[in-house]
């Protein structure tokens, strides 16, 4: 199935945005205004819901005209694109979103045509699937690990680097026995440690870079 690579699912939704001339501001602008207020770190709604590796929300205003001799054409609706790379089992993923972040989902998708709200879960699932596009080709660099697996692995990697820095390869039997004891204890601590919170960025407060830019030429 092209939507899936290993245990990672590539979900693409294209949701038509309500086209109402009387709405001020327009519904697409209301979506953009709300998205601009959402945190993108560990406080992100996608960090609160389970199973999201990466996700993006994009308002697509129109298709692109590439110039003559191509024909110029335009969409009759604007669309909200939801692109996410998540742990497989799409029903469980949608249900997890609906249960974890219902207010966020309603705040965004209430501006989309036909959105039934998350209270009616079967209708919500049907709506999301009606907006789903089949992926033609999906690539995942690491496709056999869950979000939790990867967060734990990154945490373990840092811990191992620190352990090795303070525990060089032992020379004698006594030193080897001491290193062995400490390694076994280190293993116990590493395995018992909970996974870090998803979305967590290094630094905090004034140390965290506020502006996350990224124009075409950066």
């Amino acid at each position, binding site marked *: 199935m092209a939507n899936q690579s290993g245990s990672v699912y590539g979900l693409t939704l294209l949701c038509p945005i309500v086209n109402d001339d009387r709405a001020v501001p327009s519904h697409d602008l209301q979506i953009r205004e709300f998205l601009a207020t959402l945190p993108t770190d560990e406080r992100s709604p996608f960090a609160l819901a389970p199973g999201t590796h990466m996700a993006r929300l994009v308002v697509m205003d129109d298709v692109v005209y590439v110039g003559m001799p191509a024909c110029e054409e335009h969409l*009759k609706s604007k669309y909200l694109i939801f692109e996410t790379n998540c742990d497989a089992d799409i029903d469980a993923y949608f249900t997890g979103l609906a249960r974890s972040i219902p207010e966020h989902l309603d705040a965004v998708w209430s501006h989309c045509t036909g959105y039934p709200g998350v209270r009616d879960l079967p209708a919500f699932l049907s709506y999301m699937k009606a907006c789903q596009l089949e992926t033609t080709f999906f690539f995942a660099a690491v496709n056999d690990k869950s979000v939790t697996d990867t967060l734990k692995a990154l945490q373990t990697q840092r811990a*191992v680097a620190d352990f090795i820095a303070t525990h060089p390869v032992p020379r004698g039997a006594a030193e080897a026995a001491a290193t062995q004891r400490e390694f076994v204890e280190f293993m116990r601590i590493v395995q018992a440690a909970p996974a870090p919170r998803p979305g967590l960025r290094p630094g905090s407060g004034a140390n965290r870079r506020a502006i996350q830019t990224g124009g075409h030429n950066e």
Partner: protein
Amino acid sequence: MSNINGKVYAMNAITPMRPWKTWILRAFFFVLAHVKPLQADLVNLSFIQFARWVVIPRNRFPFLGKNQQPEELQYDYLLFFSNFNGTWNQYIDAFSAVLSKGLDLVWRWSEKFPGSVPVTPFKQYIARVQFDTDYYYTSYPQATANDVKAAHVVEDALESLGSHAASLSPEQFREAYLQFVMAVQSHLGSTGEAPTVF
């Protein structure tokens, strides 16, 4: 607009295609998906965490009724979404230098695609068909694709040694620990804040 989160850049692009050409592209992707060695360059570039191409036939845009007007389009459209590490220029340069044949096979069916070499008109084309991300989230913003791969290598090696470390004699442990350090030493780079790009 928020195309960057930590060390990852979100790119979106849409290009028009004549409907008959989309079937050629679908055939190419079918072969690419089923002949893994053909993905070697994509894998070896190693700065793409997730990428996807989606062909939308002109008559298959989601239609939900309720006052939505159905689309009337002449072209099918190719959507491209990428999550990559590094800057926009580095990404396009690397694509053009390493994957030019593959890229041309993907986008040559799109209208007005100039080819991925030379890179200047290629960048102009990408800039024209790209549109910005309004909200971008990643669970591990401090990590690149290589960081994630390396972390799993380290964890696998650690579990392998840890599963029997307690039962080894000190001398056996010394040898096993030496092998462990040699196996993971090139996978221990630290993660953290992305460098500022000027």
